[in-house]
């Protein structure tokens, strides 16, 4: 979370100013839009742990997000568990799913494109299962009973939802910063840069990668649970669909993979673009994704380190170091 340049400070300032501005805009549309963007930001922060810090690019983060959402929904709907325990259950289930997928994939040495494909396949299997079994509500999904109040984590007032989400996103970003500057984070980055060299230096690379998937799963599960508590309804396409996986990876890549602020900046930027498209061209389903794709291609070509890396070029505090943010 150290800034290396005035450019990065400016980026963070814009993000904070925007997020604060939402309170004063007194526009329910902006508020609702920002709430969605923050939930996606959580999924993006989840992807960022494995995909950004660890270089383990997953194309199926919906597997973690959806598992969190479904675990909490099943606990609440089928077993009458309190939503707060559902939250804990969802986070735990997400972490377990992450560890399970990682444990299998890394046991057999999958890397790069193969890892991306196997995560995608897991998400797809889970989606089909969730839409096929009665226990998961089948094709019609699961609906929570409306019980407003903090006791059941069902907040109705939008500004409070927004505030709560801001706090959660802030917390996860703080945790990301802690992870990044801990031994664990250094090990993950070492694995990303060169796995053999990392192994030679005494790092149990398998264990670290599986732990990273578990942490990522916990964050992803958290995002899924909060989505559920916001809409009180999930089905297999909404939480296990490929759109979730895609949004989780585009934000961090555009904002700056492996950085603390990248996922937030990238996701906010994308959603502003998407919202702009919607207001200019109403009734244009899918068009926002067309623009996301264009931005992604441009970012890969022209901003290899995303917004954060780009901003580092402007007004660097210390000309010598630019690689960290």
């Amino acid at each position: 979370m150290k800034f290396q340049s005035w450019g990065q400070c400016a980026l963070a300032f814009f993000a904070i100013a925007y997020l604060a501005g939402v309170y004063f805009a007194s526009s329910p549309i902006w508020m609702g839009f920002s709430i969605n963007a923050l939930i996606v930001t959580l999924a993006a922060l989840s992807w960022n742990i494995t995909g950004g810090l660890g270089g383990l690019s997953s194309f199926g983060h919906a597997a973690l997000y959806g598992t969190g959402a479904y675990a909490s929904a099943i606990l609440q709907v089928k077993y009458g568990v309190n939503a707060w325990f559902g939250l804990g259950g969802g986070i735990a289930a997400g972490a377990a799913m992450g560890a399970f997928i990682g444990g299998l994939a890394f046991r057999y040495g999958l890397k790069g494109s193969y890892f991306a494909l196997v995560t995608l396949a897991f998400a797809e299997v889970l989606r089909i299962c969730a839409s096929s079994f009665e226990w998961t509500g089948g094709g019609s999904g699961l609906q929570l009973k409306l019980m407003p109040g903090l006791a059941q984590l069902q907040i109705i007032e939008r500004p409070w939802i927004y505030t709560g989400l801001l706090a959660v996103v802030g917390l996860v970003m703080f945790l990301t910063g802690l992870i990044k500057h801990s031994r664990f984070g250094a090990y993950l980055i070492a694995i990303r840069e060169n796995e053999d060299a990392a192994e030679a230096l005494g790092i149990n690379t398998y264990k670290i990668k599986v732990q990273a998937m578990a942490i990522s799963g916990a964050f992803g599960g958290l995002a899924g649970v909060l989505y559920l508590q916001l809409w009180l309804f999930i089905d297999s396409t909404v939480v296990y669909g490929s759109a979730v996986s895609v949004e989780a990876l585009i934000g961090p890549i555009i904002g700056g993979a492996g950085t603390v602020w990248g996922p937030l900046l990238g996701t906010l930027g994308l959603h502003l673009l998407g919202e702009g498209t919607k207001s200019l061209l109403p009734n244009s389903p899918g068009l926002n994704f067309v623009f996301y794709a264009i931005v992604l291609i441009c970012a890969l070509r022209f901003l290899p380190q995303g917004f954060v890396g780009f901003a580092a070029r402007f007004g660097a505090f210390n000309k010598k170091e630019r690689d960290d943010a």
Partner: protein
Amino acid sequence: MLEVRHLSKTFGGLKAVSDVSLDVPEGSIVGLLGPNGAGKTTCFTIIAGFTKADTGHVHFAGQDITGFSPHHICRLGMIRTFQIVQPFVGLTVQENIAVGAYLHHPQRREAMAVARDVGKRLGLGGMLDRPASALTIAGRKRLELARALATGARLLLLDEVMAGLIPSEINEIVAIIRQIQSEGHTILLIEHVMQAVMSLVETAYVLNQGRLIAHGTPQQLVADPEVIEAYLGHGAAARLQEGHHA
């Protein structure tokens, strides 16, 4: 400190290493020499746990470590470096060294302090805050050594640390290796340029086509006809002898 016994490894019909045994006494610098493709690096990868041997045993500090994973072996105090130096490019020089230091210092503050210390000892003091990508080849070789030392390893397996360096840089790295030895480390180093290590090693083993063909002091080895032939081709020793007599 390191005892290797009857190591063999075959890659699809090719005997990369066959029946290699060697000893590295504590506190010594031992060379593993041989022409290109002799199986030196394969030996290293087996000893350090990256490849499983078909047969044979590796003992380190009295413990049988055959089949242990590389990170486990490193934890016990033996580490290898890579012939093609591999810095973690996203990190600064100091953070690179800290990745090694974290092994026995889980706190960032301590690990970074150890890294700073090791970096200064290896002449990287001025570069600590620079990205690792800014280092020259010689700098990267030092970084590779620094990272290995920072793990607290007692035995270093160095894979061609002098390759690609100019003579003045080789002299510097020889001095650094001496210094590391004087601090109590044991070193096994691979080199295919014999001259570079003659002054450095106490004893050396020579590998050719996967087999050990000689073992002795550098002076003994340069006079060994089999070693000369391995390097210069069949009949070279005899021609050299004639040359001397003429």
